[in-house]
Every structure is written in C-alpha cells, then in structure tokens.
C-alpha cells in the first residue's frame, strides 16, 4: 500500500496515537518521565481507564485522520485492574490485525503491548522501536490517499460518462442529472 514512500516529504516524522490504560502503561509513562528516560516525541498519549475500552473504531479513526501508527498499552495478562479487560482487548486486537492486513496496513503500524506500572523503561523502548519501524515504513497518509482515490474514482466516472455520451443516446437511460463529483460525495 505504501506507494507514497517515493514522495516522502523531507521533513516527515511519524505521528503515533497511543491508548494507554490508566493503571499500568499510563503510570509507566509517568514513571519514565519521573526517571527522565528520553524517547522519541512522536507519540500522543490518550488516557483510558482500561485497554478494554479501546474500540477498534478508535484505531481506524486515528489512522484515517492521519496517524502513521497506533500503540495500545495494557496490563500484563492476569494483572488487569478490572480482572480481564486486557484479554477482551487482545481478542479484538487479533481480529483487527486481520482486518488491517486486508486493508494493506502494515503490521508494525498497530501494536499492542503489555506494560506494567513499573516498566518505565519498556515504554521508552517500545516507543523508540515503533517510531523507528514506522520511519522505515514511511507515511501511511490515509487522508491523502483517500483524496487521491476519490480523484481516481471521479476521473473513472467521467471517462465512463464520456464514453456513454460518445455511444449516443440510450433508450433505457435518462440523461445524467448531476455532476459526477456530487455522485461520489
């Protein structure tokens, strides 16, 4: 899917949206701060009470709004503050991964990590690692791609309409009432 990589702007740097559980990974990120561990500034953290709250739509929405990756942080298996919310997330993540693969979104772009409140260093490592991986993959740039695809579809519709017009009037079909751009909107 990564056709945009040829034209990566020189000043590009990935933007990653992170959904962190309040009790473990969010606290671990606090710990990383208190310990003054340094990591890449590419992650934007959104706090949730549990990784189980992560709706797959959040992930898709973030990607479609221009995120180059999504990181989900939850408690280690067996450690969920709410007993088993992390397992529910894991199940959704497995399904979501298959769907993302079908959409042509590379696997490293959406990542689930178990990070306990004590693992500030893991926050640092995972964020640095993920930033590097996504840098290597290049921008996902879904909004630009959507626009590009829209243009392609509109161009195709125009072409078809022109061909129909050239073939002469068709008795079955009324004349097109609206411009193609409006059809696609």
């Amino acid at each position, binding site marked *: 899917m990564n056709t945009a990589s040829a034209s990566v702007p*020189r*000043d*590009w*740097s*990935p*933007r990653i*949206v992170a959904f962190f559980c*309040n*009790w*473990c990974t*969010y*606290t671990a*990120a*606090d710990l*990383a*701060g*208190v310990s*003054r*561990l*340094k*990591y890449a*500034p*590419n992650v*934007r*953290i*959104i*706090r*949730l*009470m*549990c990784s*189980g*709250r*992560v*709706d*797959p*739509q*959040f992930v898709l*929405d*973030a990607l479609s*709004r*221009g*995120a180059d990756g999504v990181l989900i942080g939850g408690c280690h298996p*067996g*450690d969920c*503050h*709410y*007993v*088993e*919310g992390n397992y*529910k*997330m894991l199940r*959704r993540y497995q399904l979501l991964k298959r769907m993302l693969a079908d959409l042509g979104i590379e696997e490293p772009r959406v990542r689930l990590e178990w990070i*306990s*409140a*004590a*693992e500030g260093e893991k926050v*640092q490592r995972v964020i640095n690692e993920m930033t590097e991986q996504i840098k290597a993959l290049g921008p996902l740039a879904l909004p630009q791609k959507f626009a590009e695809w829209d243009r392609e579809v509109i161009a195709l519709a125009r072409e078809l309409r022109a061909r129909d017009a050239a073939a002469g009037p068709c008795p079955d079909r009324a004349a097109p009432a609206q411009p193609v751009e409006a059809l696609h909107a």
Partner: protein
Amino acid sequence: MNRPNDIRIGFYVCHCGHNIAAMVDCPAVAQYVGTLPGVVLSRDYKYMCSDPGQELIRQDIREFGLNRVVVASCSPLLHEQTFRSAVEAAGLNPFYFHMVNIREHNSWVHTDRIRATEKARALARAAIERVVHHKPLEIVKVPIHPDVLVVGGGIAGIHAALTLANAGKKVYLVEREPSIGGHMAKFDKTFPTLDCAACILTPKMSEVGSHPNITLWSYSEVVKVDGFVGNYTVQVKRKARYIHEDLCTGCQDCIAHCVYKEPKFEDLFNEGLGKRKPVYIPFPQATPQVVLIDPEVCLNFKRNKNPDGTPIVSDKCKKTCVEACGEKRAIDFTQKDEIREIKVGTILVCTGFKTFDARRVPAYGYGIYPNVYTALEVERLVNASGPTGGEVLLREGKNPDGTPRKPRSIGIIHCVGSRDKKTNLWCSRVCCMYSMKLAHLLKEHTGAEIYNFYIDIRTPGKGYEEFYNKLLEEGTHFIRGRVGEVTDWAMTPEEEGKLVIRVEDTLAGVVRRIPVDMVVLATGLEPQADAPEVRRLFNMSCGGDGWFLERHPKLAPVNTFTDGVFLAGCCQGPKDIPDTVAQAGAAAAEALALIDRGYVEQEPNTAYILEQECSGCKSCLPLCPYTAILFDEGRQKAYINEALCKGCGTCVGSCPSGSIVQKLFEDQEIFSEIAGVLAGEPAPAEPS
C-alpha cells in the same frame, strides 16, 4: 459532530518552574491555544498548582464566565484532584475540567524543544476538543465497611493492627505461620540501641492476642479477595493445626508426653539449628499460645496422603498426647482446613520478606563448609532462648574434651545477595547495621577477633553512625573489599583447619587471606517467594525488583494502585524496624482516614445503556467481570447496575450498536481527542 453552544474555555499552561518551561515554549503554546474555537482566555503561569495559580482559575471562572477549564501541567494522577477542587470552588462542576500531561509525558522525556512544543500543542488541542463534550457529573458516595484486614503478623502487621484496634476498629489479623512475630521474633537484640527484641515485641504480641478488637487468625492464609474499596469480601483458609484453638490452654503437657521422648525434627523457627517434636509450639513466646501437630511426621498420620493432599489419620499411635490433654480435649486428628469469609472495608498488606538463599553464591561455601552460617542462624545462636541457649558453638570441630568448640576468629561478609549484578542489585539497607550488631554480640559472647568485610558501610539512621564508631573503638576489624571466596585450602600452617577468606583489601591495595573459625554471611532481603501470587490476590503491582509498588514514592508511599489496599513493612522494600513501624503506623492512619470519613467517593466514570439504542443482543453481558450488566427479559434490553460498575469501559468498546456510554470517556470525547492530537500540520522536521 454536534458541538454544544456557548462554550467558554479557559486554558492554562504551567511552567512548573523550569520543569516544563525548559523544554516546552509555554507562551507559544498558550498563544496557539488562544486561537482555537471556544477558547476565551489562554494563559501561561509559573506554578498552576500553587495557591495563586488555583486562585487565578477561580477568578477567571467568575470574571470571564468560563464553563470549561483545561490545565496543561503534570500528570493527572498527581494534580487532577487539586484542579477539580479549584474549579468546583468557583461554582463549576469539577468534571468540566480536563488535564493535559506535558511534564511526565513531554518535557521530562524529550530533548528537542521544537518538537516537544509541537507535541504540547497537539495534546492541548486534543484536550480543548475533548472538554467541549464534557458533561456535569455527580460523584457517587459509597459507604465503607469499618472492619480492617491486616495480612501478615510481623512487626508491621502487629503495630498496624494494634493502632487500628486501639482506635476502636475491628481488625482481622491473618498470619501464615503458627505464631505472629515474623522475623523480629527471631532476633536477639535490635540495633543500634541493643534492646532485646523479645522485650519490645512480646508485650505487643500478647496485646494482639488479648485485644478485644483483634481477631487473630494464625496458621491461616488469604485465598480470595472480591469487591472494592470499602466493601471487600475476603476468604481466609484456616489451616488445620489438629488442635482446637479455643480449647488449648498452652500448657504444653502434650509436648512433654509425646511418644517421641526427644525432639527429632527440624525446627524451622531456629533455622534448622534445633529440633522439635511432631507436636510443638514454635517458640516460647508464641502468640497464640496454642500448640500444633505436624502431620508430616506425627505417628498418628499415614505417610501417604489423600489425592487432594490432605493427610490420612492412621490411628497407629498410642496418642499419649491426647491422654495428657485429658479433659481439655483440645487435640483433634480429624480437623480439616476451613474457609472463613469476612467482610472488610480496607486491607493492609504487611507480608514481609525472605532472606537471600546463601547457596546461590557458592564461592562463599554456605552448605559446603559447616562453619559458614547465615546471619539469621547466628541471631538464633546468640539468643538466650535459641537452640544452644545463647552459646556460640561451631557446627564442626570439637575441643580436646569432646565438647563443641567456640570460634576464636569470625569473619562477617557483607552484601551477600545485595548490590550484586549476579543476584540482587538493591542495597538491603539493614545488613551493615545487623552485621555490626552481630559483631558486637559475637565479641561479647566469645571474645573472638571479628573481621567485617564490606563494600561500603551504610549507616543512615538515628544513632547508626555512632554505633559504627563504637564498633571501631571496640577493636572490630573492618576490611574494605568484596570477598572473592571462602576456602578450606590452607597455604600456611596457621591456616590449617580454618576457613580462609580471600579478599582484595581495596584500601591497602593488596589481596589478603584471613583465616577464621567461623564465617557469617550477611544475607540480603528479597521479596517473598509467593509475592507474585499475593500481588494478584490484592490487585497490586510489583516493581521490576519484585517488591510491592506504592502508588507514589513520596505522595502516597503506603497506598497501592488499588484503593483501600495499603502497604507496610518490608513487602514494599527493605527497611529496618523503626522504618517498618513508622510505615505501619502510616498505613493504619490512612486506613483510619478512609474508615472515619464513612464513605468513599467513586470516580463517576461508570457506564450506562441508552435504552432506545440497545438491540438486546446480549454481547455485553459476559464481558463484565463484576456482573454489573443485567438483562431485562420483558423489554429485551440490557441495563447496568451503576453501583457495581467499576468504570473500565470494556462493554462500551464492544457494543455493536454503540449504545453503551462511559461517563468521562464517552465515544465523542475520545474521538475528539483523536482528532485533536492529529489535527493541524504534521510534525515538524527532525533536526539534521
């Protein structure tokens, strides 16, 4: 997205002195946020959490009619409550406030000011987008059960239980061993005052045993914890001791009349240095004063067991113990483990530590050379009620007359299992002091030459450095250097028959060989072997080193991440007795503060179901671990019992029709936050 009208947001970015301002251009963030829709005023200020900072918010709310407030500063786990209260004081619902973390998650972890400032802008924008959708919420008050569970009957648990009981609270003290007392009961003297440990501890133990407000369950373990702060349901397994605790008077006639005339079995209380009978009391001051029977060795039990591990009564013994017990009828071979259920509001975890297994450093010869001892063994040797009656006698080697030999030279090796990359990285904090205490006691008991081998002497405590100086004056030798090995390989005639300590004396700059009769290993402190299970039981966290994690090292040192569960003593990290007792008092005070308020305030982040949207598919029902989601069969709709809901949002994330709403984390709020962090220009270039 529909946007409520008449939004008036006040935005504040905190410099936190230099903590934030050094890495984030705060005025630039404030200026940028000021251009966003709905923002009425946008300020930067040196310390938002200070009184003037809070007053600024309150004033602006009144003056500018703000109806939303966003503060970009430290972690919400630190000061969310502070700002909510400030907002509330100005008459605004506290949940119209949102906090942005630009210190822990930004200024402290980044090194490029331009990119850190860009990140701060993005996070602030997300909060501005989000707070628009905030709704006024009511804090739910839940009553708190006044009873307390204290887990672990060492000095921490004892002190905490007594503090609470003296304040009039009912306390359940659960101890795994047959008696309370913990490690402290094994010590002879305590540093630096050289008070006798038993003289301090025994009165407290008997006070626990007789206190009307304390239910002491020794030889018992917590097996299950349900519920939440204020309302915990706890199951405790009372292990069978084959004695009715209420009938036993502690006369110990049964021990005297046991068919085993001599004690024959390993006495764990004395670190295996002494022997006991199958029916025994762990130590003279044991509390409760109740004997117990070890089914592993008692003749009245078969050596094989039931498939479930419970012992089988053989009835082969003459049962002279039962005869001796007579009319009291306290002995019952058919006793079974019993599960008791209790309800408590708060829990204090005081489960202590274990000492490092010295066998893990084979170079020091523990378990190879009989005259290598652990410090805890020596504590028992110098103890008047210990296995030798307080005489320090070697395991190996006899005098010409056949009596056990006293050591004439003793080497104490510090930092065994502490400050060592191969074992444990941490300093165990007590070993320097207890080594010096033992050095003093051993000198007193034997008159031997004492050598301390140390890396650094650490004496941070009241009167500790003075104690070190006293030892230096007493003529105890201190040799700086980590010991390489302990060997019995003699190179000179003087070394024959002795243990030779090989060490690089880093002050003299030479490698030395010091022959001694006895080696004492100052073993460090480690988390209990079952700490991971205990942690899960109470829903706590462990640090990377395995000690239980406090909520905040300075702001909440005895709290855990689970409300209503508190920590005290060495289960949280190595510490000495004064610190342990201080921490136990603090934990008790925190529990009291909760109980005496009478209720807990619950974060109103529970979920509810939009009935008109619910399709009745029941997908959410099995997801809730608290069975808070119920189903109305008549109307074919699910509904949530908000009293049971804990606010994780798992059901919300999986409802196919999007008909469940989590307060404070509504879909719209989170989608706005996502849009906010991603809106605007892409991240600026990396510095080249």
